[in-house]
C-alpha cells in the first residue's frame, strides 16, 4: 500500500522509507502487516477515490485517537509503558506534538542547544532561565539534554526522572557521592535537591541559596556567627561554611564527623 500512496505522496513516502518507521514496516516481521492505513484511517479508500475527505491524519483524529494509534505499538516497552497517566498525557499532549512520524525533523544547531532541549523549552518556557544561570549543567553545549534525566513519556518516579529516586539519578553521573560514608549528612542522603537545583542557579554549585544562608537554614550558629565580614564569620570569603566543611556530601575519615576531612 505504501507504493500506492507514494504515487501521489512521493516526498512523504521517500522520507518515510528511510525513517525508523519505514525500515521497520519494510523489514521487521513484527510489523509485516503495517501500512499507511495503520495510522491513516481511510487511506485505502482515499487511494481509490482520491477524495481528501476520505482519509484522516492522526492529528485530525484528535489527541486521544492519535495517541491510541501510537500506543498500539509503543505501549509495551519500558520506555513508553507509563505514558498513560503521565504528566504529559494528563496535559493533553499528543505524541505527534513532539515526534514527526515520517522523518526526523530536529535540526542540529552547532554549539547552541540541542534539538531535544529546544523542543522541551518550547513549552517549559520558564525553564529558559536555567540555560544561562551562573551554575548549571552543560545543556547549552549539547553535552547532555533534558532527556538525559527525564523520560518525557512518563515514569513511576517523580518528575518523570529516569531512576528510582532523585539521588539514584544523580549518582548515575556523580558516582563518587554514592557512598555510603562513615559520616553521613542526612539531607544529602535523602534528596540532593534539598541543597541543589539541578536546572541551574545563580549561586555557585547549583545551590538553592547561597552559603551560609543555605546552611543556616537548618544549623543554628554556635561558634561561627553568620555576620558578614567578621573574622570568625561563616560569611567570610570564598565558599563560606564549605571552606572548612568541604566534605559536606559525606566523609569516610575517622576524624571527619564535621565533614572537614
Amino acid at each position, binding site marked *: 500500500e505504501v507504493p500506492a500512496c507514494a504515487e501521489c505522496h512521493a516526498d512523504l513516502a521517500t522520507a518515510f522509507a528511510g525513517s525508523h518507521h519505514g*525500515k521497520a514496516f519494510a523489514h*521487521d516481521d*513484527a510489523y509485516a502487516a503495517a501500512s499507511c492505513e495503520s495510522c491513516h484511517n481511510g487511506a485505502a479508500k482515499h487511494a481509490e477515490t482520491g477524495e481528501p475527505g476520505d482519509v484522516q491524519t492522526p492529528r485530525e483524529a484528535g489527541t486521544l485517537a492519535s495517541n491510541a494509534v501510537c500506543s498500539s505499538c509503543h505501549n509495551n*516497552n519500558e520506555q513508553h*509503558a507509563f505514558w498513560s*497517566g503521565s504528566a504529559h498525557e*494528563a496535559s493533553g499532549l499528543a505524541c505527534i506534538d513532539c515526534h514527526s512520524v515520517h522523518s526526523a525533523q530536529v535540526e542540529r*544547531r*552547532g*554549539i547552541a542547544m540541542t534539538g531535544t532541549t529546544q523542543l522541551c523549552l*518550547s513549552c517549559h518556557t*520558564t525553564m*529558559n*532561565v536555567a*540555560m*544561562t*544561570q*551562573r551554575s548549571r549543567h552543560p545543556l547549552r*553545549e*549539547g553535552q*547532555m539534554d533534558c532527556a538525559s534525566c527525564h523520560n518525557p513519556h512518563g515514569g*513511576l518516579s517523580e518528575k518523570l526522572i529516569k531512576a*528510582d529516586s532523585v539521588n539514584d539519578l544523580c549518582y548515575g553521573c556523580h*558516582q*563518587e*557521592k*554514592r557512598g*555510603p560514608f*562513615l559520616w553521613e549528612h*542526612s539531607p544529602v542522603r*535523602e*534528596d540532593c535537591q534539598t541543597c541543589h537545583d539541578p536546572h541551574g542557579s545563580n549561586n555557585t554549585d547549583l545551590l538553592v541559596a547561597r552559603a551560609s*544562608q543555605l546552611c*543556616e537554614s*537548618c*544549623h*543554628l550558629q*554556635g561558634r561561627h556567627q553568620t*555576620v*558578614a565580614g*567578621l*573574622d570568625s*564569620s561563616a560569611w567570610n*570569603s*570564598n565558599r563560606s561554611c*564549605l*571552606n572548612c*566543611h*568541604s*566534605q559536606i556530601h559525606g*566523609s*569516610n*575519615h*575517622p*576524624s*571527619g*564527623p*564535621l565533614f*572537614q*576531612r
Partner: protein
Amino acid sequence: AAAEPNPWRFSLDLGGIFADISGDRTSKAEEYRDLSDGALLDNGVLDFENAESPWSFDMTADNVGRRDQRAGLRWGLAGRFRVDASWVQTPHFLSEGATSLWTRSGGNLEIPDAVQGQIESFFTATPAPNTAQARTFMNGILAQNAHTIDLETRRDTGKVKADFDITQHWSVAVAAKDESKSGTGRIGSGTYIRRQTVNSFDRNRFEPRSNELPMPVDWKDRSYGLGTGFHHQGWFFNAGWQESSFTNSIGSLTWDNPFEGLPGATSSRTGLTPGSDQEPSGATANTNNRGRFAQAQLDLYPDNDYERFNMTGGVNLPARTRVNASYSAATMKQNDPFLAYTINPAVIYGNGADGIGGTPDDVLAKDVALPRASLDGEVQTTRLDLRVTSRPLDPLSLRGAYRVYEYDDKTPSILFPGYASAGDSYFRPGVGQRNAAGTRVLFNEPGGYKRTSWSVGGAWRFGDPATLDVEYVNTGMDYDERQVKSTSEEQLSAKLRLAFGENFEARLTYLDASRDADGIYHVGFETSRLRAFDVWNRDRTRYGAELTWMLAEGTTLGFVYQNWQDDFPGVLPEPTPPSTSNPYPSQAYGLNETANDSLALSLSHGAENWNLSLSVGLDSSKWTSEATAKTTLTADSPQFSPTNAWRRTQDDDVLWAGLAFDAKLGAKGKLDIQIDYNDYKGSYDTVNLGTPTINDGVAYAVPDFSSSLLSGQIAYSWELNEHFGFGAKYLYEPYKLDDWQWDLVEPYMQGILKETGGSPGAVRDATANRSLFLDSTYSDYTANVFALFVTIHY
C-alpha cells in the same frame, strides 16, 4: 539505466576557530566548552540511507579534536538488532591561574622544606610581625615560589547499548559504560584554632584556618547492564540487572602546611588538662601552639560498588484499563580502608579512663588503633510501584498509584574514642552526642528512611473546550536517625484546561500541600537541636496560568505565570523535661519561608522562509531564615539568646530573554541568530530581632551580588553546489560577575575583613587573616569567537 543513488551520505564542517577572550580570569567562558584557536571539525555525519536495505547506520562527530568533542553511532538491522554508542568529553574549567605553593606528586601536595622553614621562622619571630610586614613577606614568598595552575577536570563518557530482537516478542539488551574524570579540582579543609579568650589571640600570626587545596581527580566508573523483555499486544514484562564500580586512584590528599615546617611537638604537649578535651583550661594554658601541624591529610572519595535488579510489567485490562507494576532492589557498598585519625605527631590521644585527655607522655593520636579497619558500609534500596489507569468513558480517565522507596542503611555503627578535631589540631571525645550518663561519646549514625506514597486522580473532559484534572497525593516518610521520627504530607492539586475556539487555550494549575512532622526526638551531632527544614512542618502552595493565543497562522503568543510558596511554621519546643545537656529554649530559627514568582512571555512565528522565537521572563525568589548567635561557650547553660537573633532574606531577581531566528536567504543561503540574556541581582535584607548584647550577635548587612550574561551568536551558511558550501559563525559573549565573597579572596590571605571586638565600637579592620586560598575563582570576560568553515557533502 539510471545509476543507483549512493546510499551513503557524508557531511562535515571543516575550518577554523579564532577566539579573543579578554578578562582577568576567563575560565568561565570555557566552563563546559573549548573555544580555543584551532581547527574546527564539526557537525560530522556519516549515514546510510537506503530504503531497500534493512540495515541502518548513522555516525556523528562534533568538535573533533577539542576538549568538548563527542561522537555517536547508531547501527542496526531492522527486526534483528540495534546498537547505540556514544563517546562524550565534557570539560569543566573551574578556574584559570590559581596560585599554588604546592607541587603535586600523586596524592601529596609538597612545599620545599626550605620555604616552609623560611615562613615559619618569619611568623614565629619575636616580636611577631605586624600585618603590613606579614603581607609584604608573603607576597615575596609567593612571587618566588608559587606557580599558577588551572583548575580543570574532564569527564570522558563512553557508552554502548545493544538490543537484540531474539524473536518477535522477546528481546535482550546489553549495555556498558566507561566513565572517567581526571584533572584538578579544589577542596576545602578546615583546621581549628581556638583563641585563648575572646579578642586576645594574636591576629597577626598566620595559621591556616580555612584551607583550599588543589584536589587531584582521577576517577573511573565502569558499569554494565543486562536486560530482557517480553512484549505482546496486551502485556509486557522486562527484567534487568545493572552493576557499577567507582574507583578513585587517589584516595587521600596529604599537604604541607606552608606556615609550619616542623610540627610543634613540644609545645603541643604542654598545658593540656587530662579529661577536659585537651582544650586550654586557663589563661596560662596552651593556645595556638597546640597540635600545630606540618602536614595534614584528608580523605578523598572512597571506592564504591553498586548493583541493581529491576523488573517491570504491564497488562491491559477491559474498559481501557492498564496496570503497571515495577520493582527494583539495589545495593551500595563501600569498604575503603580508614585513614588514621591524624598524621600530626603533635596530637595526643590520651590514656585516661575515657580515652581522652593526656599528659606529655601519652600515646599519640596518629598511632592509635582504629576500632575497625574499614566501614564495611552497605545500603540496600528497594522500590515498589503500582499504577492503575483507566478510561471507562471517553471523557473520564482515572488513575491510582502506590509507591514505596526504602533506603535501608545496614552500615555498622562504630564507637570511636574521639577524633582529631579538624584533623590536626587536638583530640576531642565527641561532637554533640552523649550517652545516658551525659558523657560525650562519638559514633556514626547510619540512618535509613522509607518513603511511602499513594495517589488517586482523575480527569473529566467537558467536550473540547475544557478538561479538569484533580489529584490527591499522600506521602509519608519514616526516619531512623533524623530530628523527627516521621513526616506525613497531604497534597491536593487541580489543573483546568480551557480552549476557546481553535486559537486560544488556557491552563490553570493549583496545588496545596501540608506536611506535618511528628516525634521530635533526636539530637545527634547538632547540640543546638536544629530545626531541619527538609523534615519540618511545611505549608506549600503552587498556582499558575499558561495562556496560548494563536494570533494568526504560524504566529503564537504565550504567557506563563507561576507562583510557588513554602512556609515552615512552628517552633521547636523546649525539651520536656528541660535537659541540662540541651538547654535551649523553644525557637523558630532556621528556614521560615521560600517563595518564587516566574513570569514569561513568548512569541513565535513560522513563515515559509523564516522562523522567529522570542521569550522574555522575570524570575524572583525569596529565601528567609532566622539565625542566632551563642552568648557563651559554657556547655550546660542557655547558649542562645533571643536578643542576639536576626532574620535574613535572600532576594534573587533574574531578568532573562532568548531569541532564535533563522531564515533562508535565497535558494542557497541560511541565516541563524541565537541570543540569550540573563541579568541577576541578589540582595539581602537583614533585620536584628532584638537588641544584641554582645558584638558578635549583631547582624551586619550583607552586600549584594550580581551577574549578567549576554550570549549572541550569528551564523550564515551558503551552499556553493551539491557538495560544497561555506559557513561563518560569530559569537559575542560578555559576562560580568560581582561576588564580594570571591572579591575578598587573595591567595593565602583573606583580605580586608571586620574583626570582632569586645563591643560594637571595637569592630575594626583586620588586614590579614588565616585562610589559605588558592583563589580558585573566575571573573568577567568578553568572548569574541569567529568560526569559518567549509561544509562538505557527499
